[in-house]
């Protein structure tokens, strides 16, 4: 099993996640795209782990998952609060921090 295809896939998924973050306006979907990016990186980590013959990469991926979980919890809570006050889940509506 060659390594390169996995890495390329990871790169493609990461890029798609990026574009998703940039183009989607629903905060929840944006969040999903962030998760996609994290997962893409996890794939790369796992692949590198295999390529290098040790488990450090897997450990890293594990920590990424933990952090992602924490992030999702807080992030979604924030989205909820924003939604409660603004009645909208669009990221564009929370644009007071400007000029």
């Amino acid at each position: 099993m060659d390594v390169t295809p996995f890495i390329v896939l990871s790169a493609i998924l990461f890029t798609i996640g990026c574009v998703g973050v940039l183009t989607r306006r629903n905060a929840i979907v944006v969040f999903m795209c962030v998760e996609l990016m994290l997962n893409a990186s996890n794939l790369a980590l796992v692949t590198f782990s295999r390529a290098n013959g040790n488990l450090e990469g897997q450990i890293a991926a594990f920590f990424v998952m933990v952090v992602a979980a924490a992030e999702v919890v807080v992030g979604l809570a924030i989205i909820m609060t924003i939604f409660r006050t603004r009645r909208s889940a669009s990221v564009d509506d929370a644009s007071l921090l400007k000029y």
Partner: protein
Amino acid sequence: MSLTPLHDAAAVPAVHPTDAGSLGVLLLLVIGLPALGAAVLLLGGRRTDKWGHLLGCATVIGSLVLSLVLFFDLLGKDAGERQLTQDTWTWFTAGSYKVTFDLLYDPLSAVFLLLITGVGSLIHVYSVGYMAHDERRRRFFGYLNLFVAAMLVLVLAGDYVGVFLGWEGVGLASYLLIGFWQHKPSAAAAAKKAFVINRVGDIGLSLGAALIFVTFGSTSFTVVSAASEHAGDGVLTAIGLLLLLAACGKSAQFPLQTWLLDAMEGPTPVSALIHAATMVTAGVYLIVRSNFIFSLTEDARTAVIVVGCITLLMGAIIGCAKDDIKKALAGSTMSQIGYMVLAAGLGPAGYAFAIFHLLTHGAFKANMFLGAGSVMHGMDDDVNMRHYGALQKAMPLTFATFAVGYLAIIGVPPFAGFWSKDKIIESAFADNFVVGLCALVGAGVTAFYMSRLMLLTFFTKKRWEKGVHPHESPNVMTWPLIGLAVLSAAGGLLLVNDWIVDWLTPVVGEHAEEHLSVSPLVMSLIALLVVALGVLVAWVFVGQRDVPREAPVKVSFVTRAARAELYGDAFNEEVIVKPGWSGVRGLAVFDRGFVDGIVEGTAASFAGISSRFRLAQNGFVRSYALALLAGAAMVLLALLAVNFS
């Protein structure tokens, strides 16, 4: 100075005064009394209103007494010892430059002291009556005292910078007094004009003093007079011209003459004291005092003569056309000072006569100004001679004293003016025919305009305004008139035995002999003939005709020019004031727009750039993320480029 001056026959007299000793205190008091009077009157406020005028008179009369004491003391000394100095204190020092307040009392200062305090006293007394109804009389006397003190400083200072102090002091007093009725815009403007034009002259005095310092290492008369022979011609001429500029400003000589006629806005005693008898002659004083410069430079003297000639004719012409009695007299003053300047420009041959004419003129012109003031007093402050006429009956005393002054100024023997003016005309002819001719023509014109003034005021028909009842002035005003009339009549006595010439010799050097082709007697007769012609013309054209109450409009170009004061003001207005104002306005735009514009522009451009950049902070998270991604892409590209290059 380490160099000892080489004295030879033609050398200029050096100022080497001896210590005044006990008399020095009197010198200080002569200045101190009026200065104290001024201080008390100006700082004392309303408390001094009641007796202020009396104090003002007392201080000046006190100075007169002291001056007389000093004068007779000087008279009793040998000619060689008639230069006294009173050490006071060092004014300032810087490096090798030292300026002191030491006073110099010599024959020249002595006659000036008498003139200033003498005429000054009479005019102070006169003013008591003239200003009786002015609520600010106390302040008027304060200013007058200030003037007298400053004028005394001017003539007693032993240093050019000291002269400068008095010079500006009298300028200030003149400013304050011309603008005394400052609720009148014309008076305020005239005061400012006088001061500013005088300041133009002061450029000459400042730079002159600077040049003197650079050349001689000092500005005291003692040092400069001792070393002036060693200086180069160019330097001396430059100094002479600079001092001439100063003299032009103060003495209203061409081209700085325009302020004098406007200065007549001041109360009449001021015109008499400052703008006729004393202050305006300070220029002549300066030239005569600087004889150790002027005697050595032919070029500068020529310039002085030219200025004198031009001004004496200009003043005379202006005097012919003015209907305002004071302005006519002011034109005459200009003209007479022109004579003095002309005489001073003749060098050793003329210094003494310049001073002689200065003294006699001080008496008769002050006399006539006060007379004019008396007339105005009687005519409800009307100054237009076309509204006068036939006043000799109404105001006999004024008429009589005025007449003495009139005879003196046109040069009728034996009145004072004849002697002094005749000497100047003689010396002028001796120097140069053209100059002499100018002086002679000037005398004729003088006779014309003074006769015109006389006729319009005291003779011809009544042309009074309704409700005007001319009356003789109170005694306090007529007594000074009489005093001045006596001086005007008897001033010629100074020439007995060439007393004035000998008296001034220690100051201005030996009197140079004249080389006149005709005898002095013939010369005098010619001059008298010209004067008679002038009077005749006046009689024919003014005395024999009806004088219209309004000045005729259709007149010759010459008359128009003379009425416009030969376009001196118009010239200044068009050539200096107007371009000056537009220049200043342009400069304001330049300052705002360019000098500050660069600064403000830099600030504004930064503000503009940041306000443009600020828009990038649009608050949309996605935009920030885009920037982030773009940055990451760039980093990647850079890495790639580095790795694969």
